[in-house]
């Protein structure tokens, strides 16, 4: 067997480290009851290929060495599928990039010398727990109020794939189901409305035959819980759709409005 030969010409690429020096302005808040404030942190040695969360990891390493309290922020999978990371970066949920979560955001989106504001997702329904960590339990309670289908599990469960579903509907239901419930829609909306999240969860079932059985109760209960949590009203600015890391469409909100009106009439 011939030895593996690479055709990649390393001389074409500049592998010199491009260190970035940045000024971070981060919201620090000791606990839910404390009054928070923006604290400035200069940071050096950041490489463009680092992820945003790696940059925060480096900051926290430095804070530990100095004996200071680290910056608390949410994260889990770090590959854009769990919906755990958040952060309002330079005035946008998940930062300036499109269709990515904060964990998929890279420092190459910023320039050497930049000042970066890092704040928690802001909404009355998302109270700050500490620093950049907010309680998104409101989404869980909305989901629990109707974001499910009841399935017989007594041993004779029928495979969902045995029910024919038009591809168009299946695709749209799947698109809605890609919502990871991160809360970027609420954070981006000037009214802190959760309509895009709730609409995605309503749509993903409303489009499928399995979801039709409980469709009336689902939309009424989920909207009722959404209102009870203290989210604002949607005014169709479209900010949520632009900032959503999964590209959930406003079409879902229109569908939820139709579902809600129709369910209200059925009562």
């Amino acid at each position, binding site marked *: 067997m011939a030895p593996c030969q690479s055709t990649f010409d390393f001389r074409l690429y500049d592998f010199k480290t491009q260190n970035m020096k940045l000024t971070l*302005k981060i*919201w620090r808040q000791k606990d839910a009851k404390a009054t928070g404030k*923006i604290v400035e942190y200069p940071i050096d040695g950041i490489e463009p290929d680092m992820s945003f969360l790696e940059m925060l990891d480096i900051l926290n390493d430095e804070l530990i060495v100095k004996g200071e309290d680290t910056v608390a922020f949410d994260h889990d999978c770090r590959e854009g599928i769990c919906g755990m990371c958040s952060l*309002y970066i*330079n*005035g*946008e949920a998940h930062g*300036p990039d499109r269709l990515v979560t904060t964990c998929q955001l890279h420092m190459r989106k910023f320039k050497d010398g930049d000042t970066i*504001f890092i*704040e928690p997702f*802001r*909404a*009355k*329904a998302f109270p700050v727990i500490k620093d950049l960590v907010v309680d998104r339990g409101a989404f869980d309670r909305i989901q629990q109020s109707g974001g499910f289908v009841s399935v017989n599990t007594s041993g004779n469960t029928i495979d969902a794939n045995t029910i024919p579903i038009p591809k168009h509907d299946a695709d749209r239901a799947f698109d809605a189901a890609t919502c990871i419930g991160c809360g970027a829609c609420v954070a*981006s909306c*000037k*009214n*802190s*409305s959760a*309509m895009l999240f709730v609409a995605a969860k309503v749509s993903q079932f409303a489009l499928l035959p399995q979801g039709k059985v409980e469709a009336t109760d689902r939309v*009424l209960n989920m*909207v*009722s819980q*959404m*209102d009870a949590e*203290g*989210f*604002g*009203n*949607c*005014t*169709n*600015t*479209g*900010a949520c759709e*632009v*900032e959503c890391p999964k590209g959930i469409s*406003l*079409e879902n*909100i*229109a*569908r*939820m*409005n*139709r579902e*809600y*009106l129709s*369910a*209200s009439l059925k*009562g």
Partner: protein
Amino acid sequence: MAKSALLKSSIAKKVAMALSGLFLILFLAQHFFINSTSVFSPDTFNSISHFMGNNPLVQFVIQPILIVGVVFHFVMGIVLEIKNNSARPISYAKNNGAANSTWASRNMIITGLVVLAFIVLHFYDFWVPEMVYKYVEVNPLDENRYFAELTHKFVSPVRTAIYCVSFVLLSLHLWHGFNSSFQSVGFNNKYSKSLHTLGYAFAIVVPFGFIFIALFHYFNH
């Protein structure tokens, strides 16, 4: 679902806001049509105005519905704005709204309040004198007074300027409001793109048409 719960729900408020807005858009379209006749034919303008001002259906059914629609739209708009503001008690230190939405969509309350102030002035200019003329002083019917009353208001450069600025703000309000209304009532399908074009065209043609009418009478009085 209890009726009270439906009335309190966020979606019901959205729909009510949208329907009242669409009703006002229809009113605006007919008002623009009537006013535009004043540019081409004072006689036509006089006869349509006389019909609108003396037809019992228009005066005692449609006009009260219109006034209720206007009052409902702005009261509900202010109520929703207060509720929406309370949904975010602490604002962002840095917020880049322009990155994801239009200025018009984020500032409906500002454009709306300017339009409301304009409506008050417009009532003071035309509706109140009309009511006094017909129902307080009980003057004899004069089918030819409307064109003169209209042009008389556009002698003042200040008033003409106020009208023109208000129409620009109305244009911005419609730029978002027209299409937003359809989204709120659940209309989002393959025809939406065409509807959006129609909405943007309406938001430009009607307010700037009103500006043209105001300037036409200002320069031709």
